[in-house]
């Protein structure tokens, strides 16, 4: 009985459009993180295609090496270099973009026409080759450790060289001596002596009756918010809550209470702020 649709067919026609869309996503995504995620989709789909092409060993290696190691490396570098760093849209060479797209389409047409002419014979299939050694992995091992053993040895040298090269390139020489605790202390005291910068720890964020998160500034004894009590990052983002907004409801409540009960004097507002 001839099966009309095989599992490989289903895998191909379901995953090929996904792969093409994800590949376009790699090229068109504005942010490098999105491009990396699109690349992950392409690589996982490619692993499934390998499985459909009778290459179970490459299926596993594709997921482990590409999706596991290489893409993680990409994501780490994107993290180091800056996630929101986007591409410049200025063309350095005039008309380069249009020319590149035209050349790409021409190249794809050339390749596809060449393939249409090149492959005519039906596929032999890998059953024979896989069964010679008792399986796909065994067959690959037979080739790698026999016919390609020198190429295999050279790749080990390549990997060691690459690891060393990465270490040399990413290494940064320390030009100045590392500061000790004593140096840091002396610096801090010098800053206090010259500029009057407080040598102790910074004040903690404020604790109010209804809010005590890190974005609330603490109040100084005179009632003004202490600038150093909230993180400079939050201040730069404009995410610090104004101290007046926090004291206002308490003050209103107090006013309401004191107006109902005129005999008793209002307790100090600062006590409610609980610094």
């Amino acid at each position, binding site marked *: 009985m001839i099966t009309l649709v095989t599992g490989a067919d289903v895998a191909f026609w379901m995953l090929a459009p996904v792969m093409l869309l994800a590949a376009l996503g790699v*090229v068109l995504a504005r942010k490098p993180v999105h491009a990396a995620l699109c690349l992950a989709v392409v690589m996982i789909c490619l692993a499934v295609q390998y499985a459909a092409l009778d290459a179970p060993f490459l299926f596993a290696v594709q997921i482990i090496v590409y999706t596991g190691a290489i893409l993680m490396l990409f994501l780490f570098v994107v993290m180091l270099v800056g996630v929101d760093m986007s591409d410049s849209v200025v063309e350095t060479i005039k008309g380069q973009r249009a020319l590149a797209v035209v050349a790409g389409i021409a190249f794809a047409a050339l*390749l596809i026409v060449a393939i249409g002419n090149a492959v005519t014979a039906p596929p032999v299939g890998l059953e024979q080759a896989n069964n010679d050694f008792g399986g796909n992995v065994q067959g690959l091992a037979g*080739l790698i450790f026999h016919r390609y053993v020198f190429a295999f040895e050279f790749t080990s040298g390549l*990997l060691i*060289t690459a690891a060393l090269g990465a270490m040399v390139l990413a290494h940064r020489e320390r030009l100045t001596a590392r500061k000790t605790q004593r140096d840091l202390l002396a610096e801090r005291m010098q800053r206090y002596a010259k500029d009057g910068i407080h040598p102790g720890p910074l004040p903690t964020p404020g604790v109010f009756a209804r809010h005590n998160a890190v974005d609330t500034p603490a109040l100084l004894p005179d009632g003004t918010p202490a600038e150093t009590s909230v993180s400079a990052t939050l201040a730069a983002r404009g995410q610090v809550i104004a101290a007046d907004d926090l004291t206002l409801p308490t003050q209103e409540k107090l006013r309401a209470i004191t107006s109902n009960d005129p005999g008793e004097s209002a307790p100090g507002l600062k006590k409610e702020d609980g610094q």
Partner: protein
Amino acid sequence: MNPDNYLILSALLFTIGAVGFTLRRNAIVAFMCVELMLNAANLALVTFSKVHGRLDGQVFAFFVMVVAAAEVVVGLAIIISIFRTRRSASVDDANLLKY
């Protein structure tokens, strides 16, 4: 399954990678496009392995993966060191050897 379909998919992926490499200025994304091209070549190798009924194509794909891993490690280290000195990952900014 007709192997032509796999080869056409491989050709399209390779083309998208090549076009992306010429279009994108960000060094990391350009690098990803190189990976895309290597993957497309791997797909063609595995397909030809099936067409000819020999495992050599799969061995070559395996070697390509090893070389790609080594290349990514060194390439990303270069990108990091350029970013450290020039505060930019754009391939246009690394033009000191041009003049």
